């Protein structure tokens, strides 16, 4: 862990929130990807 000095909170918060936001959009996109793929398979099987 590098010494972040007096701005440790700011730097860590910037990294934390950014990584959180990126993870969120990846997770949401992935979840919808899987769901829609399953839904399409169901529709194609019936149709």
């Amino acid at each position: 862990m590098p010494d972040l000095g007096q701005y440790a909170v700011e730097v860590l918060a910037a990294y934390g929130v950014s990584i959180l936001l990126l993870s969120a959009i990846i997770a949401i996109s992935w979840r919808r990807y899987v769901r829609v793929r399953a839904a399409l398979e169901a529709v194609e099987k019936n149709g």
Partner: protein
Amino acid sequence: MWEYANPKRFMGWTRPVLPWTFGLAGLCLAVGLIWGFFFTPDDFRQGSTVKIIYLHVPAALMAINAWIMMLVASLIWVVRRHHVTALAARAAAPVGVVFTLIALFTGGIWGQPMWGTYWAWDPRLTSFLILFLFYLGYIALWEAIEDPDTAADLTSVLCMVGSVFAILSRYAVLFWNQGLHQGASLSLDKEENVADVFWFPLLVCIVGFVLLFIALVLMRTRTEIRARRIRALEARARRA
């Protein structure tokens, strides 16, 4: 080239491309961010806050590029009516929002040590706030309209008109407040001012963000195409 914009062809060639794009994006981001966070020196003036550059600059860059990509896709949809481009524009918008939020948040945090306040009505930060509002309106319009082609047409026009007004807003904001942003030390257009130690990891991060954007847009576009196909199949089933 337009062949690849056919939904079926698109699904075909993106399937093998997608995991590679995600993998490379992850690799670049991991290398760039770890390099930047652990192995770069502090700036003599800004101290450790200079490390925020590895998130702030790529996110801000991609926030604007995402909108430009949506604008190009909208134009292609209006001129050539390729469904994939309209759906890609729709897929890119939420990703653009996330990048804009990151740029805003890291910009604000950076502001605390630099300007002594988390939020200043600095022209650049303000412009990103306005860009954020444009993204919200664009997404809301997509969500509100039932018919996918109508939605594609209307959002395309909104994107084009919005782009003009976004540029106008940028100049209006500059006129309104000359700003605190110290462009010299952190903006890309003056890259010669960024020392090499900071520049190389930053470059890797930028590549990582670009790849992540591409990967997310490809994945989300695939989702949109599938959702549209479900809709088309169901509409046909209803008629049978």
